[in-house]
């Protein structure tokens, strides 16, 4: 190895160690404190004994509600809204890719704009509207809102997924006597299945992590999704039990990490699509 090359590689080594150090800081603390039964303050310490006590204590109520309840709420909310979004945007994407109509292009542009609007700008008027419509603390309403908010995103994803499948397959089926929707359902849909799954998973992830919307429209602790529960647990409740909170965070984070590793390929392809010319 030449000298300059060695120096370059050592610089890369230092850089990588720096990155690993920086990015592992909060995660290290989360994991260590969740395993430390004595972690009651944010003070950093090496646990004197490792145990899963904090995890087991998630069934003990905080206020009146046991934290695991918030995870169950999140599961219900995210599953329902992901399913709803997938079905509704599947129907719309079918029309978008198989028919042409006036205003089609401007609708797609509008979806791109909606996808980029900060959710706070929608959460604020929604809160006042929900107060007037008496929809505060309604889990059903929350499911509908979350479905709608992720829809511009899932619709565009689904649209590009259907577009990537040649229409000629469907035309062949139609020549053989299939109706248009029949051909779509029997030919294109099975081919698009992996894309559909990733749309569902992304919608799930969105609702699973969303914070500001439920924060503003759900005020009853027993109805909190995990995100708001964690905040309530942390921000509003007298004495903070850090170990238990960290254990809760880890339980809450795991499904998301798993889903992202499954969908990593789609995600990378989606992001790569932004820069392809």
């Amino acid at each position, binding site marked *: 190895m030449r000298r300059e090359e060695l120096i370059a590689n050592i610089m890369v080594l230092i850089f990588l160690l720096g990155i690993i150090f920086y990015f592992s800081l909060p995660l290290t603390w989360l994991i260590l404190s969740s395993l430390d039964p004595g972690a009651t303050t944010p003070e950093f310490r090496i646990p004197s004994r490792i145990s899963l006590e904090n995890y087991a204590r998630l069934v003990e109520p905080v206020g009146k509600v046991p934290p695991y309840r918030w995870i169950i709420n999140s599961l219900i909310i995210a599953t329902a809204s992901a399913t709803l979004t997938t079905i509704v945007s599947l129907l719309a994407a079918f029309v978008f890719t198989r028919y042409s109509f006036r205003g089609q292009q401007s609708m797609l542009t509008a979806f791109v704009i909606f996808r980029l609007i900060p959710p706070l700008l929608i959460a604020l008027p929604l809160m006042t509207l929900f107060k007037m419509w008496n929809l505060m603390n309604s889990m059903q309403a929350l499911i509908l809102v979350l479905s709608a908010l992720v829809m511009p995103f899932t619709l565009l994803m689904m649209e590009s997924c259907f577009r990537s499948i040649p229409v000629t397959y469907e035309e062949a089926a139609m020549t053989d006597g299939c109706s248009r929707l029949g051909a779509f359902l029997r030919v294109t849909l099975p081919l698009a299945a992996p894309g559909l799954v990733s749309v569902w998973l992304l919608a799930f992830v969105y609702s699973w992590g969303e914070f500001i919307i439920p924060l503003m429209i759900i005020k009853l602790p027993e109805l909190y999704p995990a*995100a708001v529960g964690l905040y309530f647990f942390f921000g509003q409740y007298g004495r903070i039990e850090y170990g238990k909170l960290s254990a809760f965070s880890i339980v809450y984070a795991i499904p998301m990490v798993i889903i992202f590793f499954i969908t990593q390929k789609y995600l990378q392809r989606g992001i790569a699509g932004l820069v392809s010319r």
Partner: protein
Amino acid sequence: MQKRSLTSSLLDRIVTIFEGGFARLLLVPALAFIGIFVVFPLVWSVILSFTDYSLIGRRAVEWGFIGFTNYIRILSDTVFRDSVINSFLFTIFSALIGQAFLGLAIALVVRMKLPEGPLGTVLKILKVIAVTLVFISWVIPEVIAGYAWAAITEKGGLLTKLLGLEERLYLTRPLETIIISNIWRGTAFSMILFMAALESIPNYIYEAAEIDGATPWQRFRHIVLPLIAHAIIVDFILITIWTFGVFTIPFIILREQPSILWTLYVYTKATSIYEPARAAAAANIMFIIVLALIIVYLKLLGRLRGWS
């Protein structure tokens, strides 16, 4: 002849109903969802900003229009002005300088050719660990990220201790704290984007340059940079839009110091009983800025893809 199953013929029955003009009806549910829960609230926000609506009391029912009063109040509020300036600083430092720069650096390192032997193996393992950690930081729920950063910047917290400080980091240096936490949070997007952009540069271009004796810096400056310029622009605009609207992580870290960013300012006003209408006015002003950024992005995307 092929025997057809019952479900299949039933499906055909339904299908025929939806054929022709009826198919467009399938758009209705999606448009209704987006219309009711996205478009209408945005329109309502504009109406709300001209009223004296309050969350409880008489004004919650009998509100009326008061013209531009809310806008005048907001624009003359120095807290609002400071929060907007801070939001710009936050965006410049955490997104444009932090995330984009780190993301590009990591992507370049990942792309580098590694030497043979033990050093190469070590670097390879470290590369995988680093990319995985960056990725995980991006995918865990935002609330957890906020909580973890709040805890490590507390008195005696991991980061505060490492820096040898006595006081809570997030209280003494709030803006810096949310900037480093946001770099941590968002670098993955830029990293993945640049990895994809670098991937699209064919190897022979590098090799040709190497044979011609170009130094690594020359190769970066004259080959890589021009070829990924469009990716850098797309990245800059997207992370600017996102970072400008960031709410959750700073909100959770800075529980005791609201209003440092415009998003936190809007939230504080929105939840204080008499000021939701004023919050709407502030939100609308910011919406115009965000919309301008989005339009720039769309124009650019159109040019890159040659539609416009």
